């Protein structure tokens, strides 16, 4: 009995995050009046939006979210953090190619030409930021996967991970706001607020009050 109760309580701990990073973006999507597109393109767009939203949620699924870590075991949080990281970075990595899907379906601009055009538009700030964010994201993923092969001190790695994330998220949000097909006022607000809160959590942890007490339940 007690065990189940505990488990329920734990799931309950994640509810605000689920609401904020899955339900809210879905709601924003369905309430917005976006131009009609095919089912597959809408599905891909929604997947991209959710993936990005879940990456934003990563700020709150980590040690920086002190309240949560007090209530839920850090190892569980980490498991979710890793899962979301690997899966949804994988999806976000594909999103430039999602955009090219329609180009596979007609005989106009070839997907290759379209791709070259997209990644060589260096005069467009949104695209350059996208490339920056993409690179940062790749480095984040690789350095996470090979963390133990890097022979870095854990703390150094963690700080590196945090700073890189900041670069990633700022560039990515900016990129999403300026270029995103679905970036209306509501989504812009959502990205800015969640991104800013996340960065605030990081600053609180790494700059303002370095936590002296090591958290034991790793």
């Amino acid at each position, binding site marked *: 009995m007690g065990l189940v109760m505990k488990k329920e309580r734990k799931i309950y701990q994640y509810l605000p995050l689920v609401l904020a990073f899955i339900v809210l973006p879905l709601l924003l999507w369905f309430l917005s009046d976006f131009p009609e597109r095919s089912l597959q393109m809408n599905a891909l767009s929604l997947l991209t939006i959710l993936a990005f939203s879940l990456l934003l949620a990563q700020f709150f699924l980590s040690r920086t979210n002190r309240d949560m870590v007090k209530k839920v075991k850090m190892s569980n949080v980490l498991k979710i953090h890793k899962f979301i990281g690997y899966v949804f970075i994988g999806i976000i990595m594909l999103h430039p190619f999602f955009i090219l899907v329609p180009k596979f379906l*007609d*005989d*106009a*601009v*070839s997907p290759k*030409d379209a791709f070259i055009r997209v990644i060589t538009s260096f005069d467009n700030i949104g695209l350059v930021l996208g490339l920056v964010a993409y690179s940062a994201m790749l480095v984040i993923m690789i350095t996470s996967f090979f963390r133990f092969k890097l022979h870095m001190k854990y703390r150094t790695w963690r700080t590196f991970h945090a700073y890189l994330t900041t670069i990633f998220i700022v560039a990515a949000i900016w990129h999403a706001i300026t270029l995103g097909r679905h970036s209306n006022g509501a989504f812009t607000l959502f990205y800015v607020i969640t991104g800013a809160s996340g960065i605030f959590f990081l600053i609180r942890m790494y700059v303002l009050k370095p936590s002296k007490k090591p958290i034991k339940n790793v």
Partner: protein
Amino acid sequence: MSSSKENGKISRRSFIALAGGAAGAMALASMGMPMGWAENNPEIDVDALGLDKFNTDVLVIGSGMAGLFAAVKAHDAGAKVMMVSKGRLGSSGQTPFAKGIFAFDPEKEELSIDEFVAKISRSAMGSNNEAYTRQMAEHSLDRVNELKSWGFFDSAIYNKSFSKPINERNIPVHERIVVTHLIKEDEKIVGAAGFSVDEQKVLIYEAKSVILCTGAGGFKPNGFPIGDLTHDGTIMAYDIGAKVTGKEWNDGHPGRAENPAACYDGWGDMFENKPSTVSVEVHHDLGVDLNYMVYASGNSVTMGRPGEGDMNAVSGGPFTPEEFKRQETGRRPGPQSDEGRPPRGEGKPPGGGKPPKDGGGGPPGMSGTPVGGSSAGMAIHKSEGLVPINERCESNIPGLYAAGDALGSYMSGGIYTQIGSSLAGSAVQGGVAGEAAAKYSKTVGSVSISDAKIKDVEEEILAPLKREAGYSPAWVTQTLQGIMIPNFILYVKKENLMKGALAYIEELRDQHMGHLRAANLHDLRLAHETRNMIVSAEMKLRASLMRKESRCSHYRLDYPEMDDENWRAWINIYKGEDGTMQLEKQPFGQWPNQGAEIV
């Protein structure tokens, strides 16, 4: 210009526009357009406009199929070439929408070239120029093979394949330049002038020779992608004394009653298809017979789909020679359908293809109730344009050439005959004109345009921007459409109604053409286009009034029979010494000047 002066001007203009233009402004506002659009409140400082001057041997105006080959072949013949276009290379005029190109392959065809030409002439009832028909067939395969090597058949959009040969030859291309004037000095061409819609610049091109590849045009009708084609080349050539022909013929494409303005939807997914080649298939595709049927029987809605079932339900109307009557009323799958061509059996919607006249489920997007006049104002491809004085695409003005739909070559006559031949003809004529112009340019010393002339031309180009008040080009265009597009004016012609329409058009010409206003460079383009449409409308009415017979796509309700005694002739139009429009006959089968026979 000082800012205070400018401000003073603006407020005065605003006052006049507001006082006088309130109704129009409100109308536009009701369409969701900004109110400011209706005022002539120039968004640019007209007096600060820059001027760029270029010099070349051969200037190619237009960047469709004809322009491409004109530039390439003139360059290969050793001339210094420049290309200038109102739109983009391979993405303006009708070329982007032409999906079938005729290639006469002597090894595969059953007909010899002689037999092919004879068949075209039978369908065209003598109205074709056999020299150009033959030339098209003879060169088509070579041009098609060149296109193939540039990747033309690999994509539904043509800019990339067109750019290949142009870039390889380093031919400068100026896009989004509206050329408004051809310049003639000492009775020969010396260049052209226009303006950029992007930069605040007037452009002067000094050229030993000019090739007009400016396409045909229409009255900006709804449902056919010719919104950028307003016979610009024809009218600027007419203005400097060139002879123009073919204005009485009609392209008779219908549109759809549902969303008639949607060109793309009207043609199904054809605009998205890759182009392909077409072999010999000669028709007598009128299109205007639909207009007659609707005229005679009420409206298409009450008679089902026009063309469906019995074509003889309505008697009379445009005549089709027995040999070319369609055997079946159902949709022709056409021998090319296995080549992935659209099931219409016509490769080229806006270029020589013909609308489906059959119900039968209808080709993609073309089912539903048809409506008339989707290509209103346009004649049969290659029938209207500059009068050629020989088979080298040369006009009566030394140094001025034309190719494709800008040349009244009568390659097909006053009717659509060989499908896909329009795009092929543009390619062939572009090449012929390019070589001829390059050769001509070698015989001419350096050319230059005098400063006085430049000043005059610049003044004319910019006039609509400088007007303090005036008519919006959009309104004048809409009015012209209302006068010209009705079935009983444009397609089913009669003396009294055409005279009535002509009176209206003369009113637009005399009272409105000189008062078109423009607030920005987009408007300035519209103003010049509108002017060209007014002159074209006058030509169309005068030529239609003059041809007192019915033949091919020209149908007179008051002269329904073909009159071989008087009308085995083309009609040429030119500007008289007093500035008025003059018309003359040119017998079929003869070149204009000494009446030399076309062989």
